[in-house]
């Protein structure tokens, strides 16, 4: 017995002797990212309700089973986020106080380099009137080949700040009484939804001066069936979905918004069963002709932000639901991600990130942090 043990130990010693020592490692050592991100990378906005001053934007590769978490940048106090598609930059609209939660307020757009995630500049918003909302993509947008960054302000007086982000310069602020959010429109402009169910649309010149203002008639009923304020764009058409599951496409290719014919996701029978959208970022698309909507049956007044156990897939040409599937866990927010194999990124109601194949198969589930609340998902632009 002792002999046997001795042999084993001797064997181990020999095996170990064969191993080279691990070489000394370089300090400091900081990872870098590619200047251009692959199309399977996703930006997840963690609002961090439990510490709103410490929100973040998390960058993940939803196609990866390893090293899926690429890094994060700060996004404080109901922050907004946009990725530039023309420069290797990321933009965060955020708000700070000199003593954390009190003291002097600073509103700012922070600029990051994509490869280093280092801060490369900032544009201060001196009026300190940045709108503070639970993460909403349309509170900050890029227009005109991403040269102009638009920031929605709310005090509750509403306005839009126009920043020449290439020049890192605040140009102008356009008042927007009674209307809300920023929906990129036309060559160099945006639209906003107004409290009466209409839309207002502004174009501006390269100096940020307003050049046109157009209104639509009210095209939906805010009281009876409001449209969610988070549409999805296919090309220059924004697809809004209403509380009662109607699709309201609006052509925003020109200075004058054109509401297109409304159609419904639900049959009469489904409507009777109260099938409705529910969640946060409730609609996304494949950039071609397909919409994905989080749905749930037996909806009731107030259930529109609970999340849903179903995802419905609709075709914008046939205006029909072509497929329905049940994700593993109820969906809260979703985002279509292009690529060789397109995927659907879903923040589930437990705040994990689920990744589905186009056919509805669950590919992987990711934790973005013990207390992360990735309410908004931004795919590569």
């Amino acid at each position, binding site marked *: 017995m002792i002999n046997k043990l001795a042999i084993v130990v001797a064997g181990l010693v020999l095996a170990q002797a064969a191993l080279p020592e691990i070489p000394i490692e370089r300090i400091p050592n900081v990872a870098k990212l590619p200047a251009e991100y692959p199309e399977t990378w996703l930006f997840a906005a963690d609002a961090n309700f439990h510490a*709103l001053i410490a929100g973040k934007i998390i960058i993940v590769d939803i196609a990866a089973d390893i090293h899926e978490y690429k890094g994060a940048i700060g996004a404080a106090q109901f922050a907004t986020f946009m990725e530039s598609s023309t420069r290797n930059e990321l933009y965060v609209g955020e708000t700070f106080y000199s003593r954390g939660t*009190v*003291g002097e307020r600073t509103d700012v757009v922070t600029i990051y380099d994509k490869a280093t995630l280092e801060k490369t500049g900032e544009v201060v918003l001196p009026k300190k009137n940045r709108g503070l909302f639970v993460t909403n993509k349309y509170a900050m947008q890029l227009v005109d080949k991403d040269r102009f960054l638009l920031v929605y302000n709310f005090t*509750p007086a509403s306005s839009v700040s126009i920043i020449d982000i290439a020049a890192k310069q605040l140009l102008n602020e356009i008042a927007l009484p009674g209307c*809300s*959010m920023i929906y990129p429109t036309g060559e160099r402009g945006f639209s906003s*939804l107004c409290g009466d169910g209409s839309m207002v649309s502004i174009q501006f010149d390269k100096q940020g001066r307003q050049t046109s203002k157009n209104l639509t008639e009210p095209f939906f009923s805010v009281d009876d069936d409001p449209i969610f304020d988070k549409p999805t764009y296919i090309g220059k058409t924004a697809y809004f979905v209403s509380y009662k599951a109607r699709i309201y496409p609006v052509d925003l290719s020109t200075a004058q918004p054109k509401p297109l014919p409304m159609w419904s996701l639900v049959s009469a029978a489904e409507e009777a069963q109260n099938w409705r959208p529910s969640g946060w970022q409730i609609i996304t698309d494949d950039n071609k002709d397909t919409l994905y909507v989080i749905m749930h049956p037996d909806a009731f*007044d*107030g259930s529109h932000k609970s999340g849903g156990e179903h995802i419905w897939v609709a075709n914008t040409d046939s205006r029909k639901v072509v497929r329905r599937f049940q994700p593993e866990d109820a969906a809260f927010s979703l985002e279509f991600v292009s690529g060789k194999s397109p995927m659907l990124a879903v923040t589930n109601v437990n705040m994990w990130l689920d990744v589905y194949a186009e056919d509805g198969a669950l590919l992987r589930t990711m934790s973005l942090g013990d207390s992360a609340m990735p309410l908004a998902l931004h795919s590569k632009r």
Partner: protein
Amino acid sequence: MSKFDGLMERSARAVAQRTSRRSVLAGISRLLFGAALLPVLPVARAAEGGYPGVGKQESGIDGDPGDPTSCDYWRYCAIDGFLCSCCGGTANACPPGTEMSPITWIGSCLNPADQKHYIVSYNDCCGKTSCGRCLCNRNEGDKPVYRPQSNNDINWCLGTESTIYTCSTASIIGVATD
């Protein structure tokens, strides 16, 4: 080799301990191995009224039934946030040291005691970091942001010295007449 053997042995014993002791396991899960922050809330308990580890309350007002520390308290039909009654305030008072927002959104909630709809003002309390207790999101009558006075996604810490959100209150400001 003896020193290493000893270490290996201790380490093996440590692992054995970890897998055999419930409460130290919990400690390991939380701090050693960094588990999630709290056991999952038994949903039924929450739905039936109240959050674990939070003392139940009564408003003390005649005809105002229910527990103001519970998400299903009738006044909270359109609330979104941490309940101030769990944070050092009450259903209609901010915690000490915070400032109540003068502007806010308005809901209409059915009081099960008198079957009347009351107009409820959801004033946020502002200036200290998120309370972190009794997160509650109900959305009766909630409209998108383009109807701000009926929207609870807005940080209503507006017109206050600081816009930092702490928790939410629900004050009666009238009876619905329709």
